[in-house]
């Protein structure tokens, strides 16, 4: 069997590289060998950059500086994060062949850390979707069951990590796109506080909601990657000018006395019984470990999906209007007139889900609809934020399920956008409020994982990691891994 990352973590890899037990080049070669063996089925990667990755690894070996915890270690980048000179498409036809001429802020940070980018992980087109089925290029499978979706939009990132292809990946999360695929693949996914990680270089879907974050197999790995990518960036006007703590600092601290709130709305109609049962058991476990658990109410939760879809689609319709075939990317070869360049390029270049959201957003912002849709949604957003603020006056953490259901079959929901949208009901409010949220495996039902979501106060990712780590060490679900074909 080819080498994989099931039985190792970032600390082990760091130690092995530092002590010379393995070179970055060897590790990278092994990684590609494993991907070659597994990805024909899994389909987690849109593109591999083997040559560049090996060159980068050799360069790191030559310099011999492995002081950074990520130095020499391979990783996967979601396909909507700019990498200078390496094709980045947002999984869209409209950007096929597009090579950004600049690096995203997180790309620069990872390069400086000595990380080795092996390739671009598949995703829903422009991160619009919850199953990675809207990708123009391919359909990624759930690492645990190839007939099921991996979730989305960071489905490629999640599947690659869960299948042991890479130790970590970056994703982006606008309404749940890191946490939901993490839940579906039984791994750890963190959406940081809005402003914690620079968005410079992230192909925008909804600017007021998007955040980049890590997907890993363990909590500590996640915290280590966050250490590398977080921090103020003057090029992002919404980047928070705050000290970045060591996110591993509170790992191992007891959660005794930690005040945990459980929103009753997160267990209402539409939440699958298996999910509710498993998550309740997880919460009982936290309580048994000394946390003080109370039921609370977030009364506007049920309006989150509506507010989110209006705001997200509005911003997205504006953000995606730039894809017009004029300056970069795909231009429809049939187009003769300027109007045809616009319309043919966009009509051929975008998939149905992207078009749906552009249409909804354009409509929501249009003269007659603005007040009832866009403005109303922004007001509902305020009420959702107020709900959270009230709870956080008395609690350290909010805990509940990440998703209402377990992974569904490929093709099952793709033609039912409304059902797909409702799947985001538990993750969306976190984005609307800009809060940090993490999903961790709460255990299995029918061989498929179930996600436990932990939501923290703004910029208090450290407390989330503390609680997630305590839960993880109690259960060690990460030691179970999918049976990936060799």
């Amino acid at each position, binding site marked *: 069997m080819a080498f994989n990352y099931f039985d190792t973590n970032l600390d082990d890899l760091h130690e092995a590289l530092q002590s010379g037990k393995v070179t970055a080049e060897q590790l990278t070669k092994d990684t590609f060998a494993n991907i070659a063996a597994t990805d024909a089925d899994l389909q987690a990667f849109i593109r591999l950059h083997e040559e560049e990755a090996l060159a980068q690894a050799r360069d790191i070996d030559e310099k011999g500086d492995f002081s950074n915890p990520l130095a020499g270690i391979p990783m996967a980048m979601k396909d909507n994060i700019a990498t200078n000179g390496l094709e980045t498409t947002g999984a869209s036809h409209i950007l096929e062949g597009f090579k950004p001429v600049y690096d995203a802020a997180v790309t620069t940070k990872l390069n400086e850390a000595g990380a080795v980018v092996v390739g671009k992980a598949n995703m829903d087109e422009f991160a619009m979707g919850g199953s990675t089925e809207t990708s123009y290029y391919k359909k990624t499978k759930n690492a645990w069951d190839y007939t099921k979706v991996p979730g989305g939009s960071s489905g490629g990132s999640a599947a690659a990590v869960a299948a042991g292809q890479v130790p970590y990946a970056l994703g982006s999360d606008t309404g749940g796109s890191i946490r939901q695929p993490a839940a579906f693949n039984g791994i750890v996914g963190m959406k940081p506080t809005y*402003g914690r990680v620079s968005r410079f270089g992230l192909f925008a879907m909804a600017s007021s909601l998007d955040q980049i974050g890590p997907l890993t197999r363990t909590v500590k790995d996640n915290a280590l990657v966050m250490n590398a990518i977080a921090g103020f960036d*003057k090029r992002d006007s919404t980047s928070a000018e705050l000290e970045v703590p060591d996110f591993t600092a509170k790992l191992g601290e007891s959660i005794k006395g930690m005040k945990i709130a459980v929103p009753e709305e997160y267990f209402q109609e539409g939440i699958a019984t298996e999910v509710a049962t498993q998550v309740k058991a997880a919460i009982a476990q936290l309580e048994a470990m000394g946390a003080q658990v109370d039921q609370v109410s977030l009364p506007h939760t049920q309006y989150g999906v509506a507010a989110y879809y209006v705001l997200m689609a509005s911003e997205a319709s504006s953000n995606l209007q730039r894809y017009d075939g004029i300056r970069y990317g795909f231009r429809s070869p049939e187009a003769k007139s300027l109007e045809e360049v616009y319309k043919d390029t966009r009509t051929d270049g975008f998939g149905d889900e992207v078009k749906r959201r552009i249409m909804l957003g354009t409509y929501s912002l249009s003269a007659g609809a603005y007040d009832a849709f866009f403005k109303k949604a922004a*007001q509902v957003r305020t009420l959702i934020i107020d709900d959270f603020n009230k709870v956080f006056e008395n609690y350290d953490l909010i805990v509940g399920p990440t998703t209402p259901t377990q992974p569904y079959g490929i093709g099952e929901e793709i033609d039912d956008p409304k059902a797909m949208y409702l799947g985001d009901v538990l993750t969306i409010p976190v984005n609307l409020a*800009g809060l940090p949220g993490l999903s961790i495996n709460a255990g299995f039902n029918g061989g498929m994982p179930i996600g436990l979501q932990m939501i923290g106060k703004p910029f208090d990712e450290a407390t989330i990691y503390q609680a997630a780590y305590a839960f993880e060490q109690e259960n060690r679900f990460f030691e179970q891994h999918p049976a990936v074909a060799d």
Partner: protein
Amino acid sequence: MATSISKEEVAHVADLAKLSFSDQELEHFTGQLQEIVALCEKMAEVDTEGVKPTFSVTANVNHLREDVAEDWHQKKALLEQAPEEAADLIKVPAILNGED
């Protein structure tokens, strides 16, 4: 107070968004959009009288740049990405009705 969206409205929105749909697609999209819009209209139940809208959650204020010019030396690389280019200009089919 369900808003009904006509095919004509959808066609108008498509025009604003620079998308074209066949008649059949338009029918299909109108239906889907109708359903999504109905979902979004659930918000009408919420009393938002006097509630300040939130358009962003950033706490940043006056995140500004000093007026210093920088040359990022990207001209060549940018022009290489353009689908059509001539004499360092981006080439597009004639702009008709040249207003603006």
